[in-house]
Each structure stands twice: as structure tokens, then as C-alpha cells.
């Protein structure tokens, strides 16, 4: 990258900079005209200069040829003007003034807009170039950088550059011109005074930058320390488990405090110096008028300078300091952004960046890989030149199934990196079909070869997105026209040097997965889930997922059929008592009072079960139904029971968390309330206490808590309140709650809740198992299992796949690699967290599916190598044995040693 920011800016914005400069120049005459006009208005318009008698006229807008007198010896009148009387003249001048203000304003608007656009455009270019470089970092380097530091650099550190870029050329020229004009004027008035002013300006421009040198150094330190702080915070978050598990939070606090202290001192020193420089600067600026007054005054008294000239000089000097000061400020800013820029791009300048041609979007994966994989004297060194892989030689067919075994640190991991084209060998060669792997374009290594590691990463998004991630190499079909980037947006991207690929296009290479398009890809996804034994997990995700019935009416209909079918099946099996269905006119004893009142799924947080006690609409309904007092009474019963049974438990006891309606912190307060009620009844309670009691019954479930609070009469009244609440909600906020309707799909509830349409009865032995089995059978009967799995494919995997367990993560990564049907699958302990039997099953199934297609698998458990055609045994970076399982077990071998060590 260009090391000098000026050259960088000039190269990428030359024409725009020139355009801005021209507009600035064009705006100047208007600016000066508007400065002159007020004087004219006062003199001619108001005071009537030149209007000697009433009714006299003067020409308005008479226009002489500029420099006409100098060229032709007499004024050349181009336009005689319009004769106007004094009041008309005043109005004409005033409107001219208004017009000039408008013109100046528009000029300013245009200039600032252009500057802003120029700055933002260049910022976009710079940020893209930096991010692009991250995509081209070779893996070993990528491992060494801190993600949060990189993010800070691209996001924050280059930000001030955007503001500066628009001013990079126009400002110094403009201010310089202004200052030079003022200087010249002073010189013309009095050479000596001009000399004095020039001397002070020179002193200023010599001294101030020197004083500021240390500030710049500090600025650099400030940038580095802030970046390191960002890196540290990233580290604390990534290492959150270790920090808390080892009680190291205070150590981290100390580290943060030390860093913040350092940043404080740097920033404070910058402040001190900055204001000192300001002080010196102001002093120097005022030194000149002092000399004018004292020296010029003496000259005037002695008669060597006429007073008029002195006043003119002093007036002209008024215009000098501010452009000078701004120029010095600009210079400061220039140095500042130059440093920032250098500091940032320094981190992105690597000699061994991946050649952009290898990653070009136009590259073709070419014909299927064929021939042999040949490693000759293949060697890989780490950053300290220690060998990781030493002079490895082997030959294997591209379609062979090859196992690599060895202990950790034997170099087998690095061997797979090189095979997948992720790391270039330090010396020696690795060729597939006669071509060097390190020179293959990523279109080949990323499509013909699939690499799966043990800690594969998953991106935030659905399972489907993550599976399809391996098929998104380039935009294949343009997006629907309303989503597509507009030609203007594309042109803008081009101007900022960004690529013109549309993220909304269809990037998925369906053909690579053996599908014809978006319609049948799902079949292939589900097939891959079956191969890696993830189908059941995704089925369970699907049951807890939701669908939008307006977009998938056939699925919603199917679920409703399943609801009826499940009811029938449970009835037939004599299990009808296991699910208590939602019925609009009866109370569900297996649901909480809150759920019974709401009788639906909340769509907004204020109607969630936990928030209902504080919900104003609910309170109104309870009051209207006369239930408030009953709720307080129920609250009293609950509070009494809780106070009684939790009385002797120490605070913080897990029972509070598990069973109590009342947290251990609040228990003393409720104890006091209960004592008051015992003494004087609920009437004696203050509103706050009543509110506390009122909140308790909402989470009460009769079948579970068994305090006998909801008898038949109460149940009826609660159902009446339910009806009133639903009427009110339909009137006031129809979108707050999705109500349960026996004949309608509830879009806010999960598939499972929609099918069950009720609550599992508490305390029925084995209910979950029976219901789960019945549900599965019903879904199979109705051929809805695939629908549920499809919904499961929309399950969001969380940051880094955090909502999946380790086994699911590995299986998903493997499915992603298999989906693109690579010629060569490189798996590096890809399913190491599965149990032994699971690993065996999966490897066997995958090898079976991939007859005639290559597999290279590093194994944690060497005895699994029996499934492969050939085995490579690694030790200390060396290849110590190669042969079939029978050959290696038939004699005394290192492989037998490894198996025995298991």
C-alpha cells in the first residue's frame, strides 16, 4: 500500500480534488462582492450618496471591463446600468445582498457536500482495502493477530482520515492564498512593518511545529495503547471461562486499570502540551500588533509613516493571524493522520500476502482432480524456523482413502493444512496431478478439495446458511430486481474501488451439491444431515422452531392436521390424560394463572408470563372482574406457605432458586407482611405490600404447586377474566398476543406447542416419552417429519455455533464439507469429540459413500485406520511408515506401537 497518505489520496481522488478546487475559486468573487455590498447599501441606499436632489437617479449594475483602464487607457463600460431612484436603489441593493447570501450559501453547501462525499468515498476504499488484506492474510499470520485490534484499526483508527481527506488539498491552497494576500497588502502599505509581520509568522511556523513534535509522538502512543486495550478486552471476553474459573478477575482488573492509567497519562500530557502550544501561538500572534502599535506609532509620531497607512496595516493584519493559525492547525492534522495512516497500514503490510489472482472471482475450478498426490522433500518450518514437517516423501492416488496417524505434534495436522492449500510449504513440493498445491487458485483448493478441522467455525445464522456456506464462491444468479443493488450503488462501489458483487445475489452453487436449484437443495441438505447423524437433532430444533403461516400455508395446515391426529392417537392409546388441551372456556390446571389469563403466546415483552403482574391492561381487567382482592388473598396464602417452609433455610440455598415463589432476599420483607396480615388482616396493608402480594399468584400452577388456590369457582372467574382480557386486547392492542384457537395455527408458538395445543399434565409417569413417541409417529404418518426438519434448518446456531454442542458443531462442519462433493476430502480429527462407536460409524459411512473419491483423514484413534486403503504414520514431523493396515500390523512397526499405546 502507498505509505504516504497524500500520495494515496491524490492517486484515488485527483479529479475530484481538482473539481473542488475549481468550485472554491469560482466562489471567491461572489464572496468578495458580498463583503463589499453592505458598505454600498449604507452609503448609497440609506445615506443617499450621489442622490443630490429628490428624484435624482443613479445607474444600478453599471459594469466596466475589468482592467479596462490599464489595458486601453480609459474605462470601458460594458453595461450602462439601470437608472434608479434612492428607495429603488436601496431595495435593488438589498435584494442583491440577499441573492449573494443565497449564492454563497449554495456554494458552501456544494463544496462541503463534495468534500464529504470525497472523504467518505476514500474512507470506504481504504477500509475495503484493509479488510481485503485480512482475507488475503496467510493462515499462520491470521492466527497471530488479535481480532479486536484489527477491528479497531479498520473501524476507528482510520475514521479521522475521512474528515481530513476532503481538506487535504483545498484547505492549504485556500488558506495559503488568503494569508499571502494579507501579507502582500501589508507589504505594500509599509515594507518594514510587513517585514516585522513576516518575521513573526516565520517564527511561528518554525516554533509551533517543533513544540508539537512531542504531541505527535504521544498521539502515536495513544493510538497504540488504545488499540492494545481493545485487544485485551477481546482477550478477556474470549478467555471468559478461564478468567472466572481461576478467580483471575481481579488480576484482569489490575491489568485494565494499569492500561487505563497509562492512557490517562498519555492523554493528559497531550492536553497539557496542546494548551501550552496554544498559549505560545496566541502570544506570538499578538506580538505583531504590539510591534505595530509601539514601533508604527513611534514612526507615525516622528512623521516617517502617515497615520492612514498605519491604520490600514493594522486593519489588514486582522486578516492574517486566522488563516495562519488554521494553516498551522491543518499541518498538525496532516501529521496526525499521516501517523495514524502509517500505524494502521503497517499492520497490513506483509511480504507474503496471498496473491489476489489466486482468489479472483473469475477463476474456474477446472476439471476434477486426477493423478497422484506427490510429496517430495516436503518441509514446513514455524516462525522460529523450527521444523514442523521434515522432508516428507510419499505418493498416493487422488482417489485413495488415506489415514494419517501419529501423536499430537507429529506434524500430521500441518500436513493436512498443506494438502488443503491453506499453508504453503517452506521447502520441497506437494503436487496433485503434477500441479503445485500452493499455486492452485482457491477456486480449486476450495471447491475440488474440502478441508474440515476439529474446531471448525460456524457463522451466526441458520444451520442452512452454515451448510450452504461451502457453496458460495461467486454470485451465480442475479437477485430479485427489488433486492438488487441499483446501478448508482454499483457505480459508487466502483468509484470507491469496491467489488461489484451483489451480496443479495444467489451465490449458492447448487450444481456442486448435485441439486438443480433452490427447490431441491433442501433434500440434499437433509441427506447430508442423515450422513453425519444430525437429522434427529435438527428434527428437535424444528419442533421448537416457529414458521410464518402466511408464507408457508401448507406447513401450517399440516401442523393443524397433526394436532388433530395426535389427539386421536392419544385417545386410542388411553393416554388422553397426558395432555391437558387449551379450551377457551375452561381453566387449565397444568398452566400458570398468568398463562390461563393470557390464553395465548405473547408477541411483545410486556405480555410475557413474567411481566404480566406489572401489566396495566391486566390490572384493569382484574379490577373490573373484582379479582384484585382475591389475588391479594392468594398472595397471602403463597407468602405464608413460603415463609413457613423456607424459614430455616440459609439465604442462597438452591431451593430458593428451584422452588420458591420468593427469592431469599425478599423473604424477610414477606415475613413482615405476613405478620402484619396475621395481626390486622389485609386491610391494614399499604399499597406497596398489596402490590407485592398481588404479583405472587401469577406464576402459580395448581397441578404443580398444590396449594389448593384455584378451586372450581375461582377457575370460572379466571376464565371470565380471560375473556374480558382478550376482548380488551383485540380492541386496544391486537398484535400483543397470539391467542390459542383450536382451529388456527399460532404463528408465535413453536411447532411442538402448536401440535400439542395444551400442557403436558404434571405428575403423569413417563408422559414425556409417550408424547414424544406419539408425536414422532403422527409426524411420520402425515409425512411432516421433513417439514419439521426444514424448520429445524432455520435454527440459529449462535455466535461461533455456541447454541450447538461440540458434537453437533463437528458434525455440521463435516456435513458442510460433504455437501459440496469435493474430489478430495481432507479431514483433520474432524469428529474427534464423538464417542468411539460414533466415530467408527461415521467414518465407515463416509468412506463407503466416497468410493472413487479421495479421503485423507488424520485419526485420533489409530485402530480406525483399518478402514482406509493406506496409512501414513508420522512422528516428529517425519513420515516413518506407509502401507496398508495388513502390512503395518503384519510386522513389527511404529503403527503397532501407536495402536498399543491407545
Amino acid at each position, binding site marked *: 500500500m502507498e505509505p504516504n497518505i497524500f500520495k494515496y489520496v491524490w492517486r484515488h481522488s485527483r479529479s475530484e480534488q481538482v473539481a473542488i478546487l475549481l468550485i472554491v475559486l469560482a466562489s471567491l468573487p461572489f464572496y468578495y462582492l458580498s463583503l463589499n455590498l453592505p458598505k454600498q447599501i449604507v452609503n448609497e441606499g440609506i445615506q443617499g450618496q450621489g442622490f443630490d436632489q429628490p428624484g435624482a437617479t443613479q445607474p444600478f449594475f453599471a459594469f466596466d471591463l475589468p482592467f479596462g483602464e490599464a489595458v486601453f487607457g480609459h474605462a470601458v463600460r460594458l453595461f450602462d446600468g439601470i437608472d434608479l431612484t434612492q428607495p429603488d436603489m436601496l431595495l435593488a441593493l438589498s435584494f442583491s445582498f440577499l441573492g449573494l447570501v443565497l449564492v454563497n450559501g449554495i456554494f458552501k453547501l456544494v463544496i462541503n457536500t463534495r468534500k464529504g462525499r470525497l472523504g467518505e468515498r476514500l474512507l470506504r476504499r481504504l477500509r475495503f482495502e484493509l479488510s481485503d488484506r485480512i482475507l488475503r492474510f496467510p493462515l499462520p499470520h491470521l492466527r497471530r493477530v488479535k481480532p479486536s485490534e484489527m477491528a479497531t484499526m479498520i473501524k476507528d483508527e482510520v475514521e479521522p482520515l475521512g474528515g481530513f481527506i476532503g481538506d487535504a488539498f483545498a484547505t492549504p491552497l485556500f488558506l495559503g492564498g488568503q494569508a499571502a494576500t494579507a501579507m502582500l497588502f501589508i507589504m505594500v502599505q509599509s515594507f518594514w512593518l510587513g517585514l516585522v509581520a513576516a518575521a513573526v509568522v516565520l517564527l511561528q511556523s518554525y516554533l509551533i511545529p517543533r513544540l508539537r513534535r512531542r504531541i505527535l509522538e504521544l498521539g502515536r502512543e495513544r493510538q497504540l495503547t488504545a488499540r492494545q486495550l481493545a485487544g485485551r478486552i477481546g482477550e478477556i471476553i474470549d478467555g471468559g471461562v478461564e478468567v472466572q474459573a481461576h478467580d483471575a478477575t481481579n488480576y484482569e482488573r489490575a491489568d485494565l486499570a494499569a492500561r487505563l492509567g497509562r492512557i490517562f497519562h498519555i492523554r493528559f500530557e497531550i492536553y497539557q502540551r496542546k494548551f501550552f502550544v496554544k498559549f505560545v501561538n496566541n502570544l506570538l500572534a499578538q506580538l505583531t500588533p504590539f510591534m505595530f502599535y509601539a514601533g508604527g506609532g513611534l514612526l507615525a509620531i516622528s512623521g516617517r509613516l502617515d497615520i492612514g497607512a498605519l491604520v490600514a496595516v493594522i486593519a489588514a493584519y486582522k486578516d492574517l493571524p486566522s488563516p495562519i493559525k488554521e494553516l498551522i492547525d491543518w499541518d498538525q492534522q496532516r501529521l496526525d493522520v499521516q501517523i495514524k495512516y502509517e500505524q494502521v497500514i503497517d499492520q497490513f503490510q506483509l511480504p507474503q500476502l496471498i496473491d489476489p489472482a489466486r482468489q479472483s472471482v473469475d477463476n474456474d475450478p477446472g476439471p476434477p482432480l486426477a493423478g497422484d498426490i506427490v510429496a517430495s522433500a516436503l518441509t514446513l518450518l514455524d516462525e522460529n524456523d523450527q521444523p514442523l514437517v521434515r522432508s516428507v516423501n510419499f505418493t498416493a492416488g487422488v482417489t485413495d482413502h488415506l489415514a494419517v496417524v501419529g501423536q499430537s505434534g507429529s506434524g500430521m495436522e500441518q500436513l493436512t493444512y498443506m494438502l488443503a492449500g491453506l499453508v504453503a510449504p517452506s521447502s520441497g513440493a506437494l503436487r496433485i496431478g503434477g500441479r503445485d498445491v500452493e499455486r492452485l487458485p482457491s477456486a480449486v483448493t476450495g471447491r475440488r478439495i474440502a478441508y474440515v478441522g476439529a474446531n471448525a467455525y460456524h457463522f451466526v445464522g441458520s444451520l442452512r446458511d452454515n451448510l450452504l456456506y461451502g457453496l458460495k464462491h461467486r454470485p451465480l444468479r442475479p437477485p430479485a430486481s427489488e433486492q438488487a443493488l441499483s446501478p448508482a450503488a454499483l457505480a459508487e462501489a466502483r468509484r470507491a474501488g469496491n467489488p461489484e458483487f451483489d451480496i443479495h445475489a444467489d451465490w449458492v452453487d447448487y450444481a456442486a451439491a448435485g441439486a438443480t436449484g433452490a427447490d431441491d437443495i433442501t433434500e440434499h441438505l437433509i441427506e447430508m444431515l442423515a450422513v453425519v447423524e444430525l437429522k434427529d437433532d435438527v428434527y428437535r430444533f424444528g419442533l421448537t422452531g416457529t414458521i410464518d403461516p402466511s408464507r408457508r400455508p401448507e406447513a401450517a395446515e399440516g401442523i393443524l392436521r397433526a394436532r388433530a391426529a395426535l389427539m386421536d392417537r392419544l385417545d386410542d392409546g388411553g393416554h388422553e390424560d397426558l395432555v391437558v388441551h387449551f379450551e377457551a372456556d375452561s381453566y387449565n390446571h397444568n398452566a400458570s394463572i398468568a398463562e390461563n389469563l393470557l390464553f395465548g403466546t405473547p408477541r411483545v415483552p410486556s405480555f410475557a408470563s413474567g411481566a404480566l403482574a406489572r401489566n396495566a391492561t391486566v390490572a384493569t381487567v382484574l379490577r373490573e372482574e373484582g379479582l384484585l382482592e382475591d389475588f391479594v388473598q392468594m398472595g397471602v396464602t403463597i407468602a405464608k*406457605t413460603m415463609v413457613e*417452609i423456607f424459614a*430455616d433455610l440459609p439465604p442462597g440455598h438452591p431451593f430458593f432458586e428451584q422452588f420458591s415463589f420468593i427469592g431469599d432476599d425478599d423473604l424477610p420483607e414477606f415475613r413482615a407482611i405476613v405478620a402484619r396480615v396475621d395481626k390486622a388482616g389485609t386491610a391494614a396493608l399499604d399499597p406497596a405490600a398489596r402490590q407485592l402480594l398481588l404479583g405472587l399468584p401469577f406464576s402459580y400452577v395448581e397441578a404443580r404447586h*398444590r396449594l*389448593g388456590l384455584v378451586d372450581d369457582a375461582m377457575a370460572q372467574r379466571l376464565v371470565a377474566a380471560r375473556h374480558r382480557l382478550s376482548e380488551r386486547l383485540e380492541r386496544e392492542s391486537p398484535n400483543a398476543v397470539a391467542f390459542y384457537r383450536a382451529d388456527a395455527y399460532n404463528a408465535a408458538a413453536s411447532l411442538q406447542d402448536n401440535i400439542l395445543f395444551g400442557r403436558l399434565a404434571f405428575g403423569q409417569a413417563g408422559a414425556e416419552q409417550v408424547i414424544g413417541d406419539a408425536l414422532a409417529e403422527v409426524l411420520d404418518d402425515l409425512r411432516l417429519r421433513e417439514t419439521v426438519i426444514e424448520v429445524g434448518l432455520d435454527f440459529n446456531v449462535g455466535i461461533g455455533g455456541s447454541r450447538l454442542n461440540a458434537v453437533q458443531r463437528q458434525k455440521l462442519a463435516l456435513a458442510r464439507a460433504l455437501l459440496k462433493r469435493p474430489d478430495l476430502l481432507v479431514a483433520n480429527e474432524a469428529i474427534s469429540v464423538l464417542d468411539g462407536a460414533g466415530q467408527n460409524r461415521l467414518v465407515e459411512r463416509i468412506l463407503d459413500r466416497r468410493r472413487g473419491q479421495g479421503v485423507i483423514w488424520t485419526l485420533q484413534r489409530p485402530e480406525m485406520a483399518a478402514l482406509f486403503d493406506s496409512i501414513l504414520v508420522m512422528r516428529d514431523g517425519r513420515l516413518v511408515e506407509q502401507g496398508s493396515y495388513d502390512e503395518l500390523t503384519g510386522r513389527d512397526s511404529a503403527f503397532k506401537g501407536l495402536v498399543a499405546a491407545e
Partner: protein
Amino acid sequence: MSIDQEVEILRRIPIFAKIDPAKLKLMAFASERVTYKPGQALFRQGERGEAAFIVLEGTADVLIEASDGPLRVASLSENEIIGEIAILCDIPRTATVQAATELVTLRITADLFFRMIMDFPEMGVEVMRVLAHRLEQTTAQLRQVQAAR
């Protein structure tokens, strides 16, 4: 049946007879009431014991696996405790227990049981007393058997 009735039943069981009703209420509150249909098993012989059961309603059969199929050795009904040995000694279930009629039980998990004993030592003393009493009875029976030989 409300929680107060459950406490009444618990008090009729010797281990719990002398324990403060508030503690029993806590135990009842923290326990799940589980209903079994006739023929449904509470647990099977050889399984790890995770909970004890108190019969609230109905009867249960105690079956032991014999060479010619399961053999009914006892029948348990209301106010009796089932399976406490397995959770106290951490040994596998010595028999299968299944519902003979519609059976309502209070399921007390091992975790809850031990926590209660930890938190209320007087309850542990009560359990010791009952167990010692049983041991004394067994020893006496053994002595009688030996004497009769």
C-alpha cells in the same frame, strides 16, 4: 389432594413421624406428585436408584426376577415408602416395583432427600433411629432363626 394432606400422609411414615411439619411441607412442596397407570413400573430391578416414593393412593406390587419370570414378593399400599434403601446405600434396585392399581406417589429425589438431611440434622438423627431400629429387629430375627436351628 393438597399439599397439607400430603404432609399428613408423610407424618404417618416412621422416618418422618417426628419431623417438624414445616420441613415435611418443604419436602412435599419440592417433590413431584407422579401418577402411574396399572402395570406401569416405578423402577426396575438392577437400575440405579434416583428417588424414593411414598404411596399416596393405590397399591404397588414388588416383583423379583426369578428364573421362571417375575415373582411377586410383596404388595405396598397407602402411607408406605418405597425404594429408600437404594438411595440411602447407593446400590442398584433390589426389586421391580409396578403399579397394581392406579397409583399416586410422591417422588422424593435422592438429591432432595440428602439435602434435607444436610440442612436439618435432626431429620438425619430420625433416619438413623429408624434404621437402627430396623437393624435391631433384623438382628433379633436372625438370632431367633439361629436359636431355632
